[in-house]
């Protein structure tokens, strides 16, 4: 009974100690720099196509459905732009990016570190005298924190572009109307709120995946379990953080 109660606390404690140890070595740039660059490519650059695809479709679907919902009302067409653009900036660009990357990046990190753990590669790093946490975890989390905002920005751009494109192509409203509507309700804080979200999500996804991977136990099955848990739990915590940020910052 106490075990069941203590297990989550133990996990939370281990997770935060792991992150603390990772960031304690943030000055040992030499240890993680090359990994940092590699991970920025894997987490960030290589994710651009899938994020762009998802964002374009999200923007397009959102525009078409908003137009559909508003078709019989008396509000001007520009309102479609006023709904689509802030929705993308505030919520969808960040959350869609996070969900895709929870699968793509989170699972990959967990599987990679999990395999390294069960094949004793992490032990090998340690006995060489290398700080495995600084070498493996810090560059991945930092790469997430740096590259997620960049992906978020691209998702915004492409998502709004997708909305604009479908609006023009389907004759729902003109680009001018769309932009006018977007500007009418534009809040300067919107994109910055999205950026804050994406940084948070980047940290959550990479750090949970690192935690799951780093503490993988027991062979191939363990790696599979870690990978699944990393993807699922980072999605859950992304949603929780999304709500928390909305409540705290808006």
């Amino acid at each position, binding site marked *: 009974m106490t075990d069941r109660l203590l297990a989550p606390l133990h996990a939370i404690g281990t997770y935060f100690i792991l992150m603390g140890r990772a960031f304690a070595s943030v000055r040992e740039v030499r240890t993680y720099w090359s990994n940092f660059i590699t991970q920025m490519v894997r987490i*960030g650059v290589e994710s651009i196509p899938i994020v762009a695809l998802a964002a374009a479709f999200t923007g397009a679907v959102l525009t078409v459905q908003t137009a559909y919902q508003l078709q019989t009302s008396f509000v001007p067409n520009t*309102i479609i732009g006023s709904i689509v653009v802030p929705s993308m900036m505030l919520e969808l660009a960040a959350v869609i990016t996070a969900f895709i990357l929870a699968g793509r990046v989170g699972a990959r990190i967990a599987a990679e570190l999990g395999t390294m753990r069960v094949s004793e590669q992490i032990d090998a790093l340690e006995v060489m005298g290398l700080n495995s946490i600084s070498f493996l975890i810090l560059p991945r989390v930092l790469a997430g924190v740096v590259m997620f905002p960049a992906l978020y920005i691209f998702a915004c*751009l492409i998502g709004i572009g997708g909305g604009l494109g479908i609006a023009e192509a389907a004759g729902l409203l003109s680009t001018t109307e769309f932009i006018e509507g977007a500007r*009418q309700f534009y*809040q*300067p804080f919107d*994109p910055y709120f999205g950026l804050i979200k994406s940084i948070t999500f980047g940290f959550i996804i990479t750090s949970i995946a690192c935690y799951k991977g780093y503490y993988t136990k027991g062979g191939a099955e363990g790696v599979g379990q870690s990978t699944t848990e990393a993807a699922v739990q980072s999605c859950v915590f992304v949603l929780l953080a999304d709500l928390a940020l909305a409540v705290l910052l808006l």
Partner: protein
Amino acid sequence: MNYSNEVKVGLSIVLAVVVLIVGVRYFQDLPIFSSSYLLTANFENVSGLSAGNPVRLSGVNVGTVESVQLQQDEETVRVRFRVNENVLIPEGSMAEVRGFSALGGVRLGIRPGPSSNPPLQPGSIINTPSGPGLLDQLTQQGPEMTSKVDSVLDNTSRATGALANQMEEGGDLQQTLASLRNVATTLESVSGGEEETLRSAIQNLETITADLQSFTSENSDSLGVTVQRVNRNLTRLEQNLANLERTTAALGSFAEKINEGEGTLGRLANDPSLYNNLDSTSVQMNRLLRDLQENPQRYLEDMTLVRMF
């Protein structure tokens, strides 16, 4: 082509930063590459205006509202907004909230002041239609205006007094004045001219009053500008009266010289028509000036605002 990882990462981040900057400025409706400046306006009520709403000058988007802050201690709402660098807003312009938030069309409109006015400096406060700023300015400038009017009337009375003295101390006035044909002609033309100036001065005042009236009724212009104009007109009136005083003094010195019996003037002293002429002129003049002294309100009747003080 194969680029190194560093190049890929660098390119992505640089692109993202550029998109962010350009995008944010684009949606704020700011020119993407030139900069903007900040102005402040204080409102009693902003009717739902919020950050990000457009700023329009004569119906053209020229900037964005940056922040709307409630100043509870001052019971005003401070609105800070950005205006494109290349748009100059003259002093005396007015900011007002237009549109209805329910229809989504709230914006900050700017009614431009006289284009001859210097442009507002970045960071300065722009006037608003019914804010406390208006009355503040009136009460500040009021006493100054009253004292100016006072001093104008003072000068007038002094000038008249001087003229009267000269008339009385003239000695053999008939002879003296009779000998003043040339002088009289000069004086006539002078006083005629002054009369014209006075009339125009009073007309000016009437215009000012009209301006003020239209200002309060239509809120068409900034009070600051009006007050400046009134000041300018009063200064001119004051200068006119100073001229009159100087003329009177000159006349006095002439009369003295005649009293001392200086040559050619004797010959001029025997022409009664000249005297009559001069007499009627000076009587007219006297009447006008006394009237102005005693009943200034007749001339300033329409200055309803001035009477307020």
